[in-house]
């Protein structure tokens, strides 16, 4: 059942074989109870190849980069810059200099807000967000709005959790300077029609920042096809390590932006009272970066590329369709978000009479890891009139049988609270 068509050829995903690449999937959560990991939207698990690449880096190559002339430093620099090239290629950037390594997608968004915002946003300007944004693409703009007296506007949602595009077009009529939105909602699962959204934004004279934290790990994303001005994403949701993420920016835009953090590596020349900033992308990378993590991210990209993003996406679609079907069998359960054709690999839901924390605790007792809470989208939950939801999220290693385990746990919870 799991497979994908690529130029007419079906490439099946061998999930059993893939699972053997992830050591953690073999562990038990409680004695005799294996892990059923359904929380990949929070962070993905890591394959042995990634873990090993980082250990090997520390065993053989560890040195600080860019400055020293010794052999280790040169090798470490090569590995770090090699990772940048892989990340650039992964999202279709024109050149590696358009990739700025950050701690995560959140820091990437903050970088745009503080740096680009400082030269391009003035009192009264509008930043257009949507009602499905994660706090990471909301709070940085709130901070900036407070400091610079900006106006934040929000594209509303339709009843089934999609963006109201008619309302969006109307809001563009107010000439926002920036549209900042997620490509895929971490709660509703909605995949937004991002290419059309970018096109209309550009026609209205706005730049576009895409929060791709949930999309880049699960589907092929190409910044040039999308014509994105900025794209923010993290390694740890795509089989890579925590502690590293990236901001993609178009060269012309990055060139005019002032530095974000000051320190070593981001300078060309320093005097007592002044400095000259370094070239792209180093001008935005102050201090010793996450070198081993960059190496690990490169290994994660190699790993995902060898499997193929279209196969991974198709597998997740199949698992999600199955999960939706099974969840619909449970009475008193409300599923958030649109149908499978407009949705990525996650499902958030609410069960009548049982709080998500109780559901998550009961599921944990049978080894199932899900997320419960507001998933860093408090305003969205308030709008939906829910204080919290339970979310199951999937990846290339998720088996349909794991959905069955979750369903049995949900029925158990219902019985307990009946």
């Amino acid at each position, binding site marked *: 059942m799991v497979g994908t068509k690529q130029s007419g050829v079906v490439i099946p995903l061998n999930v059993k074989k893939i699972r053997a690449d992830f050591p953690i999937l073999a562990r038990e959560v409680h004695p005799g109870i294996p892990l059923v990991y359904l929380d990949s939207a929070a962070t993905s698990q890591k394959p042995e190849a990634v873990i090993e690449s980082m250990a090997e880096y520390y065993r053989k190559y560890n040195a600080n980069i860019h400055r020293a002339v010794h052999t280790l430093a040169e090798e470490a620099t090569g590995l770090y810059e090699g990772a940048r090239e892989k990340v650039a290629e992964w999202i279709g950037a024109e050149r590696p200099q358009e990739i700025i390594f950050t701690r995560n997608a959140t820091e990437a968004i903050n970088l745009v807000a503080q740096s680009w915002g400082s030269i391009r946003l003035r009192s009264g300007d509008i930043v257009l967000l949507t009602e499905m944004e994660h706090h990471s693409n909301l709070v940085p703009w709130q901070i900036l709005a407070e400091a610079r007296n900006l106006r934040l506007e929000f594209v509303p949602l339709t009843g089934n959790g999609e963006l109201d595009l008619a309302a969006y077009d109307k809001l563009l009529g107010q000439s926002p300077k920036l549209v900042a939105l997620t490509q895929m909602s971490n709660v509703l699962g909605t995949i937004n029609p991002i290419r059309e959204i970018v096109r209309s934004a550009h026609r209205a004279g706005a730049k576009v920042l895409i929060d791709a934290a949930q999309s880049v790990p699960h589907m092929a994303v190409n910044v040039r096809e999308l014509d994105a001005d900025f794209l923010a994403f993290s390694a740890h949701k795509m089989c890579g390590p925590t502690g590293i993420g990236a901001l993609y920016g178009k060269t012309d835009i990055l060139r005019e932006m002032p530095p974000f953090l000051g320190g070593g590596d981001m300078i060309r020349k320093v005097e007592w009272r002044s400095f000259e900033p370094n070239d792209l992308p180093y001008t935005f990378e102050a201090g010793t970066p996450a070198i081993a993590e960059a190496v690990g991210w490169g290994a994660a990209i190699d790993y995902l590329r060898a499997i193929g993003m279209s196969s991974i996406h198709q597998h997740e679609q199949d698992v999600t369709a199955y999960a939706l079907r099974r969840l619909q069998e449970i009475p008193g359960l409300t599923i958030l978000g649109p149908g499978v054709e407009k949705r990525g690999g996650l499902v958030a839901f609410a069960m009548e*009479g*049982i*709080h*998500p*924390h*109780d559901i998550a*605790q*009961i599921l*944990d*007792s049978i080894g199932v890891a899900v997320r*419960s*809470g*507001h998933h860093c989208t408090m305003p969205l*939950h308030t709008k939906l009139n829910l*204080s*919290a939801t339970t979310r199951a999220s999937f990846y290339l290693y998720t088996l349909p049988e794991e959905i069955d385990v979750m369903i049995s746990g949900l029925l158990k919870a219902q019985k*307990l*609270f009946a």
Partner: protein
Amino acid sequence: MDDLYRQQIIDRYKHPLKRGELDPHDLSYEDENPLCGDRIRIDLRTDAKGIITAAAFSGDGCAISQASADLLAEYIEGKSLEEIRSLNKETVLDLLGIELSPIRLKCALLSLKVLKAGAYGLEEARKVE
């Protein structure tokens, strides 16, 4: 887990004895656990000697937070406000009769924190954990 959801807790969650608001009341306080969205309000009526003559809770959240609030509201009726000062984590855990992980402990202790903040101010509430 089955221990965590003992019948008493499920019963108290589904059929609380002390859920509601007191109107009028002598004391009312509300707070929430921003991490999980559990929200508890406690209303008290006291007599001239500072004895709690009626207690009620309202709010929403998980079974642990709501059952603890219900058990606590029942427990404090007839006690003096001064006695409330000596209530602690163990009081609530004894009422629940279960052990809790650090994360779930926050759910269980929310009602006690609300009670102490209402009776003595936030300073006293912070000592709960």
